[in-house]
């Protein structure tokens, strides 16, 4: 699975996710990536793209969960990402990237690694695999 989340200079957020799914999957199997609210979500507050065990991400409606805790609990982006990855995945393993309308960027994962890259307008840039 691959994904990208962006907030532009006008504070507009967007998210996109694309995947081949699971190796040796049954024909016709649908995972989290195409499901809005599970693998992908964007609103006026943030943009989120998820990856990992699709069935766990679907059950957790993981991407929407980040926006929901920002909206209803007033968490900032990184706290929302950490809370959701820690509290909402049950036994599942997954990761996600997110941006906020304020130009913040964050990622979180409970798997043993995640291929990710992040950058902001003030010059921050990080590319990583491991924790």
């Amino acid at each position, binding site marked *: 699975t*691959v994904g990208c989340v962006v907030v*532009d200079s006008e504070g*507009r*957020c967007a998210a996109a996710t694309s995947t*081949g799914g699971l190796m040796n999957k049954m024909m016709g199997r649908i995972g989290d990536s195409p499901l809005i609210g599970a693998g992908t979500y964007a609103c006026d507050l943030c943009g989120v793209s998820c*990856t990992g065990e699709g069935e766990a991400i679907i059950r957790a409606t993981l991407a929407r969960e980040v926006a929901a805790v920002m909206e209803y609990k007033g968490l900032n982006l990184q706290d929302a990402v950490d809370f959701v990855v820690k509290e909402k995945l049950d036994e599942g393993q997954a990761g996600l990237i997110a941006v906020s309308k*304020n130009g913040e*960027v964050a990622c979180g994962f409970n798997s043993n690694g995640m291929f*990710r890259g992040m950058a902001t307008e003030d010059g921050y840039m990080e590319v990583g695999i491991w924790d």
Partner: protein
Amino acid sequence: MGGWAIAVHGGAGVDPNLPTQRQEEAKQLLTRCLNLGISALRSSLPAIDVVELVVRELETDPLFNSGRGSALTENGTVEMEASIMDGPKKRCGAVSGITTVKNPISLARLVMDKSPHSYLAFSGAEAFAKKQGVELVDNEYFVTEDNKGMLKLAKEANSIVFDYRIPILETCSGAGAIDSPLQMNGLPISVYAPE
């Protein structure tokens, strides 16, 4: 206003023994995609266009599990899916069961922009793709030798995996390996039974 920001990912769950050279290749691809997105943002492209542009690049490169280099089905074919969402008006588009569209994310974008729906799948999505004139390729284009090998290992382990964890075959006689319960992500399928 906080300025622009961008993040990309290539999947969670990484083989702890991934060779250093493969790790470097992955970092180079992530860096290339970040820079592609950054120059688009500096040219004032809207966020929705930038996420599509970057995911297209990730789909075209065979390194990660999407587009060319996608994981294989039990039949050794590729069935892809993608979704895209634009925050300001919460518009969205999604596709599943895609087998011939070179960049599924652009078809998801067309579902969002050019159809009355938010999700099209399988033959309906393929018919819509033809009508929209997106680039179509043979399913073989998406299949790589690496993934043929991975599928073989997954089948020998009687497992469905989202990442590297293809369980090592028990050393017991073949029989034990053959009737071991179906596994997903290296766990007995019963863990997912609720699904």
